[in-house]
């Protein structure tokens, strides 16, 4: 889909929220499993937004989860200082790093039909069995990206987080691919960084074509 402007997104929110402080904030919830870089994804997204001059807040769901356990991380983006510390209960966007969570965890909790959903999968929403749930959603805000495959190709390991951020940049238009690349390079270095940047770029392309 075509990248939405930031202003457009902000307008969408204005109608939904009552208080003036809330109107600008954009909230993203990321679901995945321990070891998939869920927390890193939220952090890198916050760095990407920071690189564009935004205020951003990223935080994990604070578990003591081990590898493989369901993990949640959050990211808020705003034009002004973010003071609120509550977990994100009504996300504007959802990134699902592992589709096996769809039927295990209530990943869609608090989601409104105006939200964006990005899923790491080679399958479609129908094939994943969530077509009914997303029926009222805006189709251009639903997207899948084969992030594991892209990561395997470019990084050598199925680490989907960077690729998904590339996909998210394309889907939401909230951050540019350049900012995402910059954020990836601030977290990783050398070949690992470049592999992840390549995976993000590929995912960006994939999401745009989607």
């Amino acid at each position, binding site marked *: 889909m075509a990248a939405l402007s930031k202003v457009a997104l902000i307008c969408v929110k204005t109608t939904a929220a009552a208080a003036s402080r809330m109107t600008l904030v954009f909230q993203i919830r990321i679901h995945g499993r321990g070891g998939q870089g869920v927390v890193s994804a939220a952090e890198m997204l916050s760095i990407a937004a920071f690189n564009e001059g935004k205020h*951003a807040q990223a935080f994990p769901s604070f578990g003591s989860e081990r590898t493989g356990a369901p993990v949640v991380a959050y990211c808020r983006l705003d034009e002004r200082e973010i003071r609120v*510390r509550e977990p994100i209960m009504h996300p504007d966007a959802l990134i699902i790093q592992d589709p096996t969570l769809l039927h295990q965890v209530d990943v869609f909790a608090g989601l409104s039909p105006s939200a964006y959903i990005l899923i790491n999968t080679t399958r479609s929403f129908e094939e994943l069995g969530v077509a009914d749930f997303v029926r009222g959603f805006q189709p251009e805000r639903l997207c899948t990206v084969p992030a594991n495959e892209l990561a395997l190709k470019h990084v050598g390991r199925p680490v989907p987080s960077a690729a998904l951020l590339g996909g998210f940049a394309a889907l939401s238009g909230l951050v540019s691919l350049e900012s995402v690349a910059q954020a990836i390079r601030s977290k990783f270095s050398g070949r690992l960084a470049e592999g992840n940047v390549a995976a993000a770029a590929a995912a960006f392309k994939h999401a745009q074509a989607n």
Partner: protein
Amino acid sequence: MLKQIEGSRAVAEAVALCRPEVICAYPISPQTHIVEALGEIVSSGRLAPCEFVNVESEFAAMSVAIGASAAGARAYTATASQGLLYMAEALFNASGLGLPIVMTVANRAIGAPINIWNDHTDTMSQRDCGWIQLFAENNQEALDLHVIAFRLAEELSLPVMVCMDGFILTHAYERVDVPDQAQVDAYLPPFNPRQILDPAEPVSIGAMVGPEAFMEVRYLAHAKQSQALSLIPRWAGAFRQAFGREAGGLARSYRTEEAETIVVALGSVLGTLKDTVDELRESGGRIGVLGVSCFRPWPFAAVREALAGAQRVVVVEKGMAVGVGGIVSNNVRTAISTRPIPVYDVVAGLGGRPITKASLAAVLQRAMTDDLELTTFLDLDRALVEKVLRKEREVRRSGPIAEQVLKLKG
């Protein structure tokens, strides 16, 4: 320089800029990222000379800091929760000896039942150990408070705890302005100790003091904390001048002009509270917030003054004295004891229970109409508690409490 970094990293950067000479490291969630980052900074050679000591317990961490500080080195450590309790004996010792150690506490609940998430039970349990306790509202303030803490500690020759909410701040990525070395150096002169272990001028530190002088020694500790009440605003002022932003101080008011209800709180919940109060103000509520930055010494006068116009006070706190109720609220009551206004106590966020704007707004609205019990537990599942209590009445061997609660919770 503006950076988008983790709270723990921001604190580590601040501590490194303060040029500590001895850092004692022992892992405990959610503090660990701080000492990890400092270890990395020391290994890189960026912070030198500095001894990074990997100790075998928090008790040892504080003890190594005591030795280092007594030998004239600027000493730092960080801990949380059980770790703070494990070093409790050494905490009293460090303050009793008057050693200006600075420590970060990444606030976390205390077990049993074991819980790694945030509340203030750990530092509240040590509120009377003689350390100065400063609470950070956000990561910028957490960073800034460390610079202030070293200045304050060394000026007074007293140890300072910088309390920041575990996970909520320590693990949050947000924008912070990291000062440069020259700025920090200008604010924080080299450590010039009041006492030092030096073969050229031998002193005995830590002698036994009997009834004939112990009262006087303890009184001096109290007097020093009182001195801190005037020094803290002074150093906060100097900080504002040097760095161009607010940090520390005793207490800060937010939208308390003509407020009938003032909400008092410490730490990161202040952010959520401010957003909530903004919304309540928009619907006409005359409500404001008082953020207490310095919990020890307790700023009687500043709190009294800030609450002077209020008709009621609500204290939202992440801890409690079991069998009593609120801790901060009791301190607030002593500050305004001459005024017969209700002080509502809202115990919230224990063991990491999210404190949401919705729940806060609901409880504050009730408080604003004086329709609230004196002590409330925010989002408490009362039905569940009743079930457990009923079972205990009915069955002798009712089993471990935590297990029952988890079972009933399903």
